[in-house]
């Protein structure tokens, strides 16, 4: 069953604006990961945040994790047209398999 569940959003923003998307999950986790997918093909790992971390940065990405609410957010600052993609959160289940949410589609308009 899917554990990560993003708010089903399709964001359309102007280049330079920030994009925020959320994810909730149901079970206890050791970490939560965010992936990007372009054109419905291969996923690219963006960032991993561990359960004992509350916030993590990587370049223009900022991820937060609230284990009490079982939720995470991904913020992309100063968006670029190349950020146009679908973004998925994923949690690790037994045997290291990833459970993905449905994803958020982000369109950055130049």
């Amino acid at each position, binding site marked *: 069953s899917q554990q990560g569940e993003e708010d089903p959003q399709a964001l359309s923003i102007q280049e330079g604006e920030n994009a925020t998307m959320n994810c909730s999950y149901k079970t206890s986790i050791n*970490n939560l990961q965010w992936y990007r997918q372009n054109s419905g093909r291969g996923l690219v790992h963006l960032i991993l945040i561990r359960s004992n971390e509350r916030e993590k940065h990587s370049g223009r990405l900022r991820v937060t994790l609230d284990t009490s609410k079982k939720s995470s957010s991904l913020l992309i600052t100063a968006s670029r047209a190349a950020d146009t993609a679908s973004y998925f959160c994923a949690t690790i289940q037994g045997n290291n398999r*990833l459970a993905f949410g449905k994803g958020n589609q982000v369109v950055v308009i130049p």
Partner: protein
Amino acid sequence: GAGVSQTPSNKVTEKGKYVELRCDPISGHTALYWYRQSLGQGPEFLIYFQGTGAADDSGLPNDRFFAVRPEGSVSTLKIQRTERGDSAVYLCASSSTSREDTQYFGPGTRLTVL
């Protein structure tokens, strides 16, 4: 080094046919995963290999689906008697160990069953 590769990139077949999808993981990665992604959905787990053995095949939808990894490197996902509902993008990923390491995904194979 090279990433995960998958062949073919696209496969169109007729209902009832047999198909094989191939995955070449990153060299040295012992863990290999197959996922399936339907349109508008997130990827769903199919099967996980640690070395040559299938450590977890609980995600395979039925006995028409089978996967092998005979030498602990390349893996083949095999689908018998394909159905239209099998149409999806099949994604392969590998990681260096099974202990919560980052999984690196291939570009996927888009399977269309007519």
